[in-house]
């Protein structure tokens, strides 16, 4: 596993003065290298990687299952694995009609569908997950877009998730649905999105 975490001083602060910089800040990159790995853990730390300064977090996921048959990865926030997640999804597969599904007692945030290990080599899925207003006292919401190809069968999905907890998000854990490993070459990039408070 190769992990890069940006703990530099925030770029919007230069010699103690606020500046208008890039609103998207690269926080962490996790690349599965060598053998496969069982879990990805991202935590708020210091400097640019102190998540308390951001409005949203955006996670870009790109990977596949390393040695199992599951096609879903799970996200848990702040180590909460209770039935505190709600989701609504809309998805299409092949030429079938688009379908919807819901769950109001999920134990994870549904953020990534990816190819099982038996899928043809070099088939990789991707998703973009936005976690909104992560430091507010609201229940947290997340919007997900997924593109997944499993051999000749493609999936496309949008998923709305809600984590029924008012805590600020300080940790993200990513694991395979059935406990398999994540394949080498998979990568997960986390970005912070800054606000700009010019209006009361």
């Amino acid at each position, binding site marked *: 596993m190769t992990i890069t975490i940006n703990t530099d001083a925030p770029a919007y602060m230069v010699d103690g003065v606020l500046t*208008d*910089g*890039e*609103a*998207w800040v690269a926080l962490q990159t996790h690349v599965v290298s060598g053998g496969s790995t069982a879990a990805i853990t991202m935590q708020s730390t210091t400097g640019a990687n102190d998540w308390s300064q951001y*409005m*949203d977090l955006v996670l870009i996921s790109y990977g596949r299952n390393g040695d199992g048959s599951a096609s879903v990865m799970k996200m848990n926030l702040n180590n909460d694995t209770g039935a505190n997640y*709600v*989701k*609504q*999804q*809309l998805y299409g597969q092949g030429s079938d*009609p*688009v*379908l*919807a*599904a*819901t769950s*109001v007692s999920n134990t994870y945030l549904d953020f990534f569908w990816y190819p099982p290990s038996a899928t043809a080599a070099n088939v990789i899925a991707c998703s973009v997950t*936005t976690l*909104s*207003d992560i430091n*507010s*006292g*609201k*229940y947290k*919401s*997340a*919007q997900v*877009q997924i593109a997944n190809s499993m051999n000749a069968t493609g999936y496309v999905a*949008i*998923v*709305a*998730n*809600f984590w*029924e907890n*008012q805590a600020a998000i300080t940790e993200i854990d990513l694991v395979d649905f059935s406990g398999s490993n994540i394949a080498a070459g998979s990568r997960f990039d986390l970005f912070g*999105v*800054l*606000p*700009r*408070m*010019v*209006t*009361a």
Partner: protein
Amino acid sequence: MEAIETVYLEADVASVTFDSISGYEHLQLRFSEKADGPNGAVYMQFNDDTGSNYSYKQMFGTAAAAQALYGSVSATKIALIGTTNASASTIYGGGIVDIWDYANSNKNTSVHCSYGSRMDTAAPFVVSGNGVWDSTAAVTKIKFYEFNGWQRGCSFTLFGIKSS
């Protein structure tokens, strides 16, 4: 991408407007929303145009039903159905609206939106939609409003994306 302005609502309001938006290629609005009443929708208008110059279409899902479509042409605004109105004070929805090439005076302006909301405690809602403003005028003002108004605690941040 640069953050242009964040509006955080400390009281209920009818609408949020952005009018200092020049200098970018594209715009992106990221929001955390909650409506002040039931059966609402996110509405958008540009440059104070209230004429029948907008079109929109959305695909949305709720519960286990097959996807549904919702749209209109010659509308007086772009409507993005399904804002959050859950009674619990902690429940807000979130979304993203992209406004492409908004300053180009040779094209009509198009937008894309994706968001998730909760109509009540047990009814999440997911939407992917688009809209068009049938005008070639450069967008200089964006009004973002809700059928019943926005509740305290909503936040709206407009970002600008520059070209290379």
